[in-house]
């Protein structure tokens, strides 16, 4: 039986793991490759490396670090952040990423998803969606929440999948970094709208928050703060999930 995944997320800036609250106020949380190895040892089913520094120099440094991480870890690695064209995707896959996530660039030019999926296969193209509550619905926002798009997040999810996204990484911007729990209603709606795996992100404060969102039916839960602060290990989260009869590795 396919297991649900627990994915620690490394937000990497200037070669260091950082963590912010609602995407601002970044705190330093150590070396990314060390953190990646530590989480892999704790039983992480996959790792997500989110690059939050812009610029060409930062890009070259990112590739070097991903290549280092990719050869040293033995679980899958998803890399995203600042991916703006197909050569970026090719670079990252070549460096050792197993999947690449695309966010704002896909909103700006949805055809990018198709180009990447056709060339590299849907299974390695993740479309990341940052969703912010807007009345009874959610809006897909761009550039880490700094740019509104006027697009309905669930509609965008549907289009991204039609265009070739193999997985969706959906962050609830209202709960990200707040440790108030995942926005269950959003994921419930997404699960009914698309038939690719969904990774829920944003708001986990405890193992039971993660079990809650997995119970809803998402394929994976991504979390940062609760792991970086050493409050909970990946294995503790998995134990809680197993007690609730969720299939875990």
């Amino acid at each position, binding site marked *: *039986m*396919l*297991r*649900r*995944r627990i994915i620690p997320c490394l937000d990497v800036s200037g070669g260091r793991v950082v963590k912010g609250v609602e995407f601002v106020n970044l705190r330093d949380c150590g070396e990314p490759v060390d953190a990646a190895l530590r989480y*892999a040892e704790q039983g992480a*089913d*996959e790792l997500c490396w989110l690059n939050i520094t812009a610029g060409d120099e930062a890009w070259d440094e990112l590739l070097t670090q991903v*290549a280092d991480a*990719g*050869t*040293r870890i*033995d*679980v*899958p690695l998803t890399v995203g952040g600042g991916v703006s064209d197909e050569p970026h995707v090719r670079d990252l*896959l*070549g*460096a*050792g990423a*197993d*999947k690449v996530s695309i966010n704002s660039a896909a909103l700006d030019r949805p055809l990018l998803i198709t180009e990447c999926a*056709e*060339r*590299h*296969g*849907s*299974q*390695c193209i993740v479309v990341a969606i940052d969703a912010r509550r807007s009345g009874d619905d959610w809006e897909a926002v761009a550039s880490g929440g700094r740019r509104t798009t006027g697009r309905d997040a669930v509609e965008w999810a549907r289009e991204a999948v039609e265009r070739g996204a*193999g*997985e969706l990484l959906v962050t609830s911007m209202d709960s990200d970094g707040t440790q108030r729990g995942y926005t269950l209603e959003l994921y419930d709606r997404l699960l009914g709208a698309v*038939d*690719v*795996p969904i990774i829920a992100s944003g708001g986990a404060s405890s193992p039971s928050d993660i079990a809650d969102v997995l119970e809803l039916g998402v*394929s*994976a839960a991504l979390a940062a703060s609760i792991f970086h602060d050493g409050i909970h290990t990946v294995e503790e989260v998995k134990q809680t999930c197993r007690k609730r009869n969720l299939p875990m*590795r």
Partner: protein
Amino acid sequence: MTAVTVVDYGGGNVRSLCAALERCGATVTVSAEPSVVASSNRLMLAGQGAAGTAMQALNATGLAEALLDAARRHVPLLGVCVGLQVLFDHSEEDDCAGLGLLHGSVRRIEGADRLPHLGWNDVEPLSEHTLTHDLPAITYFAHSYAVTADIPSALAVTRIDRATIASVVAHGSVAGAQFHPERSSEAGRQLLRRFLAWDGDA
């Protein structure tokens, strides 16, 4: 130390596969050179992406012919993911002909609630074989196409909702794993170690 050549046809995963093989004690050569591949004594075919793109690259570079030569010499060959899929007669993905080293067709998985099949799943052995010795195990998958479990070369199977796919296959010295051993932690290393010690027989 066992020497192995990883065939580089421009697909992904080469780096991580090499690192995993090295962790298992292998001496790894990466080559895109048909003559090197044709004279190698142990081969791995990595894979990521679409079957059509992979076959096009293998045919255009002369690597397809080199792999067929190696197979005729009974050299142990292990394909991973798309590297497994191109060993078969045909793939529905891009409607392309494969190497034809194993018989059967690669088809889009039918009966799964969500595709791609992404994540860790059980690999259950069907028959006794060097490559299935450490099974059952839980390994990492990332694909939407597969060969069904009823093909003659299936050595191990994996269930996805209402579908059952072949997850380890072999016939003679030609073998494949639908999962990614390089991303499957200890379970992946176990398969790679078995492959490195395998003489190409059952």
